[in-house]
C-alpha cells in the first residue's frame, strides 16, 4: 500500500470540495426559487333560461248554437294565446268524436265551415277572401304565428247546407297546437261546443217585448220556453253574455241601462238582445229576441229606449 493511499485525500482537496459544494448549493438553489408564477382570475355568472311553449284556448261562445235555417250563417270565435316564452306557430285542427251517431255525422258533413284570423277581418257573417274552408267532417286548419304573450282571435263561420238534417247535433272538437322548434309544443282543446238543427226548418224565434219607464232604463219581457231546457235565462248580445244577468221563468224580464250593453261595435245603433236558457254556464238555443236603442238626453247623458 502506498503512503498516499494510506493518508487519504489531502486537507486542501477536502477544503476545495467543500467550497465547490457550497457554490453549487447557493447558486443552484437560486435556479428554482425565481419561477413561482402569478395567477389571477375573475368570473361572470351566466344563466341560460330555456324557452317554454304554452297555449291558452278559449271562446266558442255560446257553447250551444241552434241553426235557424239552412243557408243562415252563425259566427263565433276562439282565442289562442301564446302563454309560452318563445315565439311559436299555432295550428287549430278540428274533429268530431269517434262516437258520433250517423245523424251527427250527416250534419257534420252538411255544415260549411270557414275560419280566419280576426286581424284580417272582423268576425262578421261574411268571410274574407283568405278564409280557410271545409266542413266539420273535413275541417279547415287555420294556422299563424304568435310572439310570447300575444293572442289571436280566430273567427269560425258555419252555415248549414240544404243537406243538413233536422233534429241533429254535432260536437266539433277544437284542438290547438302551439309549436316551437324540434319537438317542443303545447296543446289545448275546446270540447264543449255544440251545434244543433231544429226539428223543422226554419226556426221562428219569439219576440221579447221592450218597455221603458224612464230615459235611462229599458226592459225586455219574454215568454219562457220550458222545452228549451234550463231553469234560468240569460241575455246575450251576439255571442257575449250581458254581464252576469240571469232570471228564472217565474220572472221573465231583463232591465238594461246603456252601460249594461256593449259600446262597440253598436254605437248608437239598435242593439239586438238574444235570450237563452242556461244549463249551468252553458247557454241553449235562443228563445226570444228583443231590440233596444241607445240614446242621449239634452245634457248628453247616455240613455236607452225601445
Amino acid at each position: 500500500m502506498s503512503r498516499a493511499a494510506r493518508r487519504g485525500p489531502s486537507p486542501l482537496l477536502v477544503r476545495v470540495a467543500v467550497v465547490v459544494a457550497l457554490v453549487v448549493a447557493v447558486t443552484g438553489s437560486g435556479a428554482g426559487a425565481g419561477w413561482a408564477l402569478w395567477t389571477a382570475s375573475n368570473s361572470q355568472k351566466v344563466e341560460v333560461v330555456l324557452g317554454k311553449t304554452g297555449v291558452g284556448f278559449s271562446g266558442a261562445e255560446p257553447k250551444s248554437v241552434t241553426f235557424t235555417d239552412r243557408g243562415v250563417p252563425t259566427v263565433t270565435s276562439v282565442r289562442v294565446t301564446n302563454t309560452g316564452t318563445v315565439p311559436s306557430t299555432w295550428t287549430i285542427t278540428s274533429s268530431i268524436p269517434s262516437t258520433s251517431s250517423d245523424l251527427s255525422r250527416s250534419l257534420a258533413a252538411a255544415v260549411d265551415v270557414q275560419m280566419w284570423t280576426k286581424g284580417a277581418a272582423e268576425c262578421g257573417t261574411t268571410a274574407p277572401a283568405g278564409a280557410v274552408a271545409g266542413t266539420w267532417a273535413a275541417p279547415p286548419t287555420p294556422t299563424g304565428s304568435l310572439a310570447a304573450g300575444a293572442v289571436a282571435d280566430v273567427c269560425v263561420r258555419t252555415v248549414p247546407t240544404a243537406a243538413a238534417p233536422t233534429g241533429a247535433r254535432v260536437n266539433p272538437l277544437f284542438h290547438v297546437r302551439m309549436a316551437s322548434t324540434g319537438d317542443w309544443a303545447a296543446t289545448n282543446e275546446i270540447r264543449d261546443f255544440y251545434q244543433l238543427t231544429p226539428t223543422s226548418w226554419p226556426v221562428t224565434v219569439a219576440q221579447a217585448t221592450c218597455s221603458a219607464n224612464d230615459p235611462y232604463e229599458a226592459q225586455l219581457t219574454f215568454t219562457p220556453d220550458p222545452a228549451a231546457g234550463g231553469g234560468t235565462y240569460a241575455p246575450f248580445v251576439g255571442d257575449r253574455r250581458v254581464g252576469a244577468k240571469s232570471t228564472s221563468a217565474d220572472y221573465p224580464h231583463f232591465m238594461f241601462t246603456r252601460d249594461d250593453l256593449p259600446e262597440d261595435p253598436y254605437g248608437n245603433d239598435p242593439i239586438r238582445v238574444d235570450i237563452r236558457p242556461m244549463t249551468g254556464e252553458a247557454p241553449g238555443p235562443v228563445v226570444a229576441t228583443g231590440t233596444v236603442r241607445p240614446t242621449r238626453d239634452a245634457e248628453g247623458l247616455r240613455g236607452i229606449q225601445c
Partner: protein
Amino acid sequence: MTARRSTVRHRAAPAGALRRLWAVTAVLAGAALAGALATGGTYALLSSSVPAPAGTVRSGSAALAVESSPVVRLQGLVPGGTTTNATTMRNVGDVPLSVTVAAADVTAAFDDGPGSTGQGASLDELRLRVTPVAATADCRPGLAGTTQYIRAWATPTTVGAPLAKGVARTFCLEFLLDEDAPSFVQGGVDGLTFRVTGTQVRS
C-alpha cells in the same frame, strides 16, 4: 549525496503545489460557471451605482378585471337555437398573462321545481362556444371558437394569445341547444360561472 537529494526534493515540491493550485482553480471556475448557468445570470463584477431617491418598493401583481355585467341572464333558447353574450376581461396587473377559460359551478334547475323529470337533462343538450372577438358587437352566432358541452368546460381551456398588461379581451359566449333537445327540458334554467384565469407568462 544527501544534500543533492534534498535539493531535488526542494525543487520538486513547488511543481506539485502548482499543479494542485491549477486543479483547484479549474474546479472553482467550473463550479462558478455551473452556478451561473443554473441561475441564468452572470457574475460580472463590474458595477456602478448612484444614490436612489427615497421611495416605496412595491411588488408587481397579476389581476383581471371583468368589464361586463357580473351576472347575465339569457332567455328563450329553443332546440336548434343559439343565444350569445359577450364578456370582457382586462389585464389590470403588471405582467402579461396566458388566459384559460372554464365553466364552474354548473347547475340545472326547472321552473316546476327540483326533482322534476328533466332535472339536469338540459345540460346534456347545451353546448358552449367561446371565441375571442375584437369587440362586443362582433359577438354573433356561428363563430369559430371551441365548442363543447357545458360539463366539458370544467377543464380550463386556453383561449387566444397571452394578454398583455393593460389590454382587454372580449369573449363571445354562444350557447347552443341541440336540435333534438327533448320537450321535457322546456323551461329549464342552466347556470354556470364563466371563469377566466390568467397565468403570468415566463419572460
